[in-house]
């Protein structure tokens, strides 16, 4: 029997109502994200990548269809959504979105605080995540004292520190130069292979798209191509 997918979308659609006009950002989306997947959401600007990732990350709700998390329908219970986000989803933003008043260490520790992990367990997890992204020596720095690539590494550490089932990343390399972007992608690949962390990220950079295991190509809010590498 096939294992339950981590996240499954069934006929998911998202519409925006702008006055009288209705913008259909996504429609008829069927996606299955398996454990250890390394999936890219590709597509041109405006094709619906961000919208799709927001729905996967439970920070937005679909106007139609159902999202299953570990086989269970998410529904629109806000507390349940918050719990899933807190415990099982890591999120990486295109613009890094670190908390400016916290230093590197505190930013990475924050998700553990939310989960109630304390003391030496928390310390060890944070140190491990920092060393995985190669920033152990920057733990006292404030985000604004870091380069873009370093900030994104902190964001990755923050996403993986709680060992979530899945890490979602919306164009994680778009704000970085191509070599730094490549390093970030290599880091994600490494974490995927070594820790088995599931990654879903969006991109329109062919170089990056090529490294994914699964490619979902969007066009005008519909899936144009769904390709699972052998």
């Amino acid at each position: 029997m096939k294992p339950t997918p981590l996240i499954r979308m069934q006929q998911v659609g998202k519409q925006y109502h702008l006055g009288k006009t209705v913008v259909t950002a996504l429609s008829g989306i069927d996606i299955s994200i398996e454990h250890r997947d390394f999936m890219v959401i590709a597509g041109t600007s405006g094709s619906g990548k961000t919208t799709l990732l927001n729905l996967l990350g439970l920070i937005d709700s679909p106007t139609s269809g159902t999202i299953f998390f570990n086989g269970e329908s998410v529904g629109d219970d806000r507390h349940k959504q918050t719990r899933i986000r807190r415990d099982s989803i890591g999120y990486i933003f295109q613009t890094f979105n670190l908390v400016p008043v916290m230093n590197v260490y505190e930013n990475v520790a924050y998700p553990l605080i939310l989960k109630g992990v304390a003391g030496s367990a928390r310390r060890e997890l944070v140190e491990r995540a920092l060393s995985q992204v190669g920033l152990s020596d920057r733990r006292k720095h404030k985000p604004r004292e870091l380069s873009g690539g370093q900030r994104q590494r902190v964001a990755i550490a923050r996403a993986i520190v709680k060992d979530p089932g899945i890490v979602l990343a919306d164009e994680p390399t778009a704000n970085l130069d191509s070599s730094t972007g490549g390093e970030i992608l290599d880091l994600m690949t490494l974490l995927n292979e070594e820790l088995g962390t599931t990654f879903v990220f969006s991109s329109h950079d062919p170089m990056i798209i090529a490294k994914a295991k699964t490619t979902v190509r969007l066009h005008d809010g519909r899936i144009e191509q769904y390709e699972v590498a052998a």
Partner: protein
Amino acid sequence: MTFLLMGFRNLFRQKRRTATALMVITFGIGCLLLTMGHTAFIDWGLREQTIHSETGHLQLFNDRFFQKEEETILEFGIDDAEEIAASLQQFLEVQLVQSRISLMGLISNGDKSVAFIGDAIEPEKERQLRTMFADNGSARFDSLIVHRGEEVISLGAALARSLNVQYGDWVTLMTSTVDGALNAVDLRVVDTFRDGTVEYEKRAVNIPLPVARRLLMTDRVGKLIVTLDKTEHTLVLRDRIITWAAENGYGLTVKTWKEQAAYYRQVVQFFRQITGFISLILLIIVFFASVNTIVMALVERTREIGTLLSVGTSRAQTVMMFWCEGLLLGLIGSVLATLFALAVSALVNGADIMLPPAPGSSSGYPLSIRNEFAVFVRVAAATVVASGFSSLLPALRVTRMKIVDALGHI
């Protein structure tokens, strides 16, 4: 804990804005504390002055004095004044017990007669009473003390003028005795005194207690004035004296200084109203200073709120973070305000500034500030509540925010 710490750091992110808000709170609440401190000073000063010149802490009357109108003077006076006064010394807190009789009648210089209102007193004890807190005009009784045992009188300065009498002149006091008969006594003027209100000064006389007793043909006195070591002991001693009087069969009613000090009550009431009004205005200012800080913070940090929510912070936790920020603003503000008030009051109290006299009063009073710990605590608590409340209201907006919108979709 984390949220408190984050609130603290977030507060100092916009240094200038927070500094402005803190300055508003510090200055506003500091001024409130100073106003309250000055009111407390006036309250305390007037209280102690009233007690240590007029009312003592407790006044003992014959029970029936308050139940029925007297038909003749001292009908309901106190019979065993000396015995009671001696017994009251058993209470360690009792410092002084003295008798007084209030009497009215006519005073004459031989040509002209006018009505008088008199107090028969024990001059040594009156002087002692008026030196216990500060010197509240104790010299007023010096001549009566010098002429102890003689048939003498001291007149209000305005009365002496109106009768055209001076030191050494003789006047006649006429009044009805306890039996309702008329009686008169000739007394030598040995002093005049001034008193705050001219109306009173035109009628007032002081005579020694024994003279009054002979004039009224009685051993009774009108009331006993009991002065304690500390004003704070008033209520405890009242209750103990009531119990003691009942056990010993003295039919006495005990009144506290506050019940007898109408002028004190009016003045204090007046200052309380002013302070209450100022407090209200200043708390509203604190409210808006902190509403403004938090509303601005919410707008500026909307994206950050989106981030926090998307990594799994609950809305309640996010609201708490902003709420902590407001509470901290109030807390830091009230600490600064306290320091401000302490510093200014030290300066003011050291500077010996005199304020002009209040209407109807003949002398000015010092600008002094009396800082009371309980007041500081109460004001700080009110400030924190006001700022907490004013930050909670806008912070609750977080509960209605959509995460994607907050993150700034696209």
